[in-house]
């Protein structure tokens, strides 16, 4: 039974045919699991997991001013981005808060291809419609599906279909004919593993999904494991770990601040971002190893060693790969050093925790040596 208020992706029937358990997420009826979260998590770490991420927003920003206009609201240097590359960035409000996090790339010579979060896409697209000026035009690609294939065997699976994909390094992107259709492909993902994200016309999605599942190395993976995989990889989930009140500095996302853009200070929210870079933020996102008791989930309080509440957990749970409980949350910078002993309060009970480095599980991206 589907909640009638939920939208569906082009792969909805395929998920149901696979016996997925469906839940509402980001306004869509999505598979949370097929055979089970733990098995799917482990399969992705060991083989290749297939994810329907068609709920995410896809769009192109084109026109002579596309990149200059896009840059006004993100802190990344997209003028310097070469065709065939993509870059993670943050859509910022005037206060330097994160409206959304996104991928934007140049798969072809026609402006930018952007992918944004499902729950924010209507807001993001409205923001760009209202704020892009000059010769820059937003075109929402709502007739496309997005499929991710992730894991150490993902490249072998994909290269068997299209040899040129072997040449891609992490964050390379292209528009090419794949499975006989016009596809946007990037070597990236949200699991910490090597893999690809593939945008295809909606009408072809089910055929391509089923074709990939014929490979014995590939299994379908639901949103449950997607969440535990990204948590282990230390990747923030917008609306939970970062939101319109958190800045890139607080969110520990300063890698997304390009040097040239910081120097020019010409992006939305630059005043706050530069001030926090110079003086330090009031709080910062850290990784926690919860050393005893129950998993600490979103909303659990974080206390210092004396029991004084200093922050909150924004994501947390068991790490299937590590066999221990991990979390991310915000604490003052004075309590953020690696090895700092803290506590998390779960159902009224304090449990020992320690600040640890993120990613919790090493990322295994396919980085090519710089030429």
């Amino acid at each position, binding site marked *: 039974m589907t909640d009638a208020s939920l939208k569906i992706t082009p792969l909805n029937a395929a998920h149901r045919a696979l016996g997925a358990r469906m839940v509402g997420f980001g306004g869509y009826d999505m598979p*949370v*699991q097929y055979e*089970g*979260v*733990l*098995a799917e*998590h482990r399969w992705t770490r060991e083989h290749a997991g297939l994810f329907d991420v068609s709920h995410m927003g896809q769009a192109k920003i084109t026109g002579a001013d596309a990149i200059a206009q896009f840059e006004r609201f993100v802190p990344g240097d997209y003028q310097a981005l070469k065709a065939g590359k993509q870059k993670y960035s943050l859509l910022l409000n005037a206060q330097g808060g994160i409206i959304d996090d996104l991928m934007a790339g140049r798969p072809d010579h026609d402006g930018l291809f952007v992918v944004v979060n499902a729950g924010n896409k209507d807001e993001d697209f409205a923001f760009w419609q209202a704020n892009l000026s000059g010769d820059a035009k937003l075109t929402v690609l709502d007739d496309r599906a997005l499929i991710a294939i992730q894991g150490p065997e993902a490249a072998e699976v994909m290269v068997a279909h299209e040899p040129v994909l072997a040449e891609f390094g992490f964050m390379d992107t292209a528009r090419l004919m794949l499975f006989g259709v016009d596809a946007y492909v990037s070597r990236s993902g949200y699991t910490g593993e090597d893999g690809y994200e593939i945008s295809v016309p909606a009408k072809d999605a089910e055929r391509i999904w089923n074709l990939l599942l014929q490979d014995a190395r590939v299994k379908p993976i639901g949103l*449950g*494991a997607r*969440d*535990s995989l990204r948590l282990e990889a230390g990747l923030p989930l917008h609306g939970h770990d970062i939101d319109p009140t958190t800045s890139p500095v607080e969110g520990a996302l300063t890698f997304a601040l390009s040097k040239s853009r910081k120097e020019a200070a010409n992006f939305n929210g630059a005043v706050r971002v530069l001030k926090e870079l110079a003086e330090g933020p009031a709080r910062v996102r850290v990784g926690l190893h919860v050393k005893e008791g*129950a*998993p600490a*989930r979103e909303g659990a309080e974080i206390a210092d060693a004396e029991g004084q509440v200093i922050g909150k957990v924004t994501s947390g*749970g*068991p790490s*299937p790969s590590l066999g221990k409980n991990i979390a991310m949350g915000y604490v003052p910078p004075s309590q953020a050093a690696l090895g700092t002993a803290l506590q998390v309060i779960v*159902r009224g009970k304090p449990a020992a925790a320690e600040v640890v480095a993120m990613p919790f599980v090493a990322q295994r991206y396919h980085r090519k040596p710089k030429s």
Partner: protein
Amino acid sequence: MKFTKDHEWVRLEGDVATVGITKHAADQLGDVVFVETPEAGRAVSQKDGFAVVESVKAASDVYAPVSGEVIEGNDALASAPETVNADPEGAGWFAKIKVLNPAELDGLMDRAAYDQFLTTL
């Protein structure tokens, strides 16, 4: 064995009730990764949250199907929470409760009624 609408089961032997969560509940939760069972001596009232079961995704309360005093929590679940998935209505029991008022069980469903209830969800 009797069942609640919150998917707990209870089996009465003398005045001691063994309680746990149903197979349906365990299947719906998916992989159980953490269980918190009550300590002996704790007084519980029917419908009180008295234990917690956690999957990868979320924590869920388990409600006492009967009132009484906990005489034993299943400590084995701390190191082997997956037992709740493997044998929810056997080795995956949560607690034994010394029952105050056996008549409380009359208000619960028998197996046939519970199975019928599941078809309405």
